[in-house]
């Protein structure tokens, strides 16, 4: 069958048609909160797409908590400095498909030496532990969808928690955009296969997956 389809492919050559389309449910009202707090009608498949995008974002926070401007963003930026501190070019490491050479101990030493074990939360003024944040990130990374991207990239140890450090994941996703996009497509197709057009059930599954995050 595949051969037959393959031989037909040349007859259906359309170089500029848009990318993959999926069967979706007819548009239905979906209860979602607008930024201002009011109810808006959002198509269920749009809500699903948005949540999948969030899940594939290495800096995603569980639920609706915003990352931009948060203490978590500040902590991740602090942690990103460790790579240069130990003489590594983060982008180059990622492009070479190397396992993350930094260890938890190296991160801890870096934070101690730079006096940044704690950083102030700009929202509350409270002190947050960068190291505990790192541990939470590493502890939950493999439970999410990121391992699917590592499958696509290849050569990376999915069981090495350091490969799930958010800055490292972000560098990998930037260097291997196609692979990240392909992993997302696999995941999406599997959801369609499992849930069909039942976007509400799909959303429920994704929301549970989202809550596996590091909070």
């Amino acid at each position: 069958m595949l051969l037959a389809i393959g031989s037909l492919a040349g007859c259906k050559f359309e170089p500029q048609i848009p990318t993959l389309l999926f069967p979706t449910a007819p548009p239905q009202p979906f209860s979602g909160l607008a930024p201002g707090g009011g109810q808006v009608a959002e198509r269920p498949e749009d809500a699903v797409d948005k949540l999948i995008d969030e899940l594939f974002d290495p800096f995603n926070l569980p639920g609706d908590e915003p990352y931009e401007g948060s203490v978590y963003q500040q902590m991740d930026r602090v942690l990103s400095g460790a790579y240069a501190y130990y003489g590594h070019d983060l982008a180059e490491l990622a492009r070479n498909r190397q396992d993350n050479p930094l260890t938890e101990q190296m991160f801890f030493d870096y934070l101690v030496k730079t006096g940044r074990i704690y950083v102030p939360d700009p929202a509350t003024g409270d002190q947050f532990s960068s190291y505990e944040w790192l541990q939470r990130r590493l502890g939950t990374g493999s439970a999410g969808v990121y391992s699917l991207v590592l499958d696509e990239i290849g050569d990376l140890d999915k069981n090495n928690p350091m490969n799930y450090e958010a800055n490292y994941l972000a560098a990998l996703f930037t260097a291997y955009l196609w692979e990240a996009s392909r992993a997302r497509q696999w995941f999406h197709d599997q959801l369609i296969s499992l849930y069909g057009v039942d976007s509400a059930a799909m959303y429920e599954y994704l929301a549970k997956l989202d809550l596996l995050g590091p909070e």
Partner: protein
Amino acid sequence: MTNRMLADSLGIALLLVLGGCKNSQALPVEVASLRENLPTLERAALAWRPDAYLESSEIPLHNGSPASWLIDAHFNSPTTPYESLLVNLNIDGSISTERIAHTIPVRLVAPIAPDEWALDSEEALKSGLDSRRRQFLEVHADSHCSFLKLERDIGEPGEKVVWRLVLRECLPGGESLPDIIIDPNSGRILR
């Protein structure tokens, strides 16, 4: 003929029969032929950039796979550092393309030339399917997200072209087997 020679001959004959059985054993999954379809995929890429070249290609193992495509091929262009092209051969036989905008320059590996891989996808799959992997596909016949990928072996000397066989379940936390790296000319398992 001595008894020893007779026994040796029978042994060789048995091995040949068993070898033939192994080679003719039906694959538990279907894969599209990259060799046959690559010209079509390349035409789409050349419409994007005349200097486009094949960087890698992924072929899902169908039967139990949810993938909506048969083959995808990723193309780079040496004169287009911030963009690459993904070309899909879809299940319905249509071709679709997706331009991928990069925020850092694309890592320009050497093009994958036709003479660097003699084994087509199905032959590569046969080479990589040992009994453990065959069993994986049989056990997960209803649902798996496995694929073959033709790519350069980044990080290894010479960055040669290889087939990589990835067998895995679909959802995060699902079972997966270690990747197999296959020589695309001899079918030998490299690691």
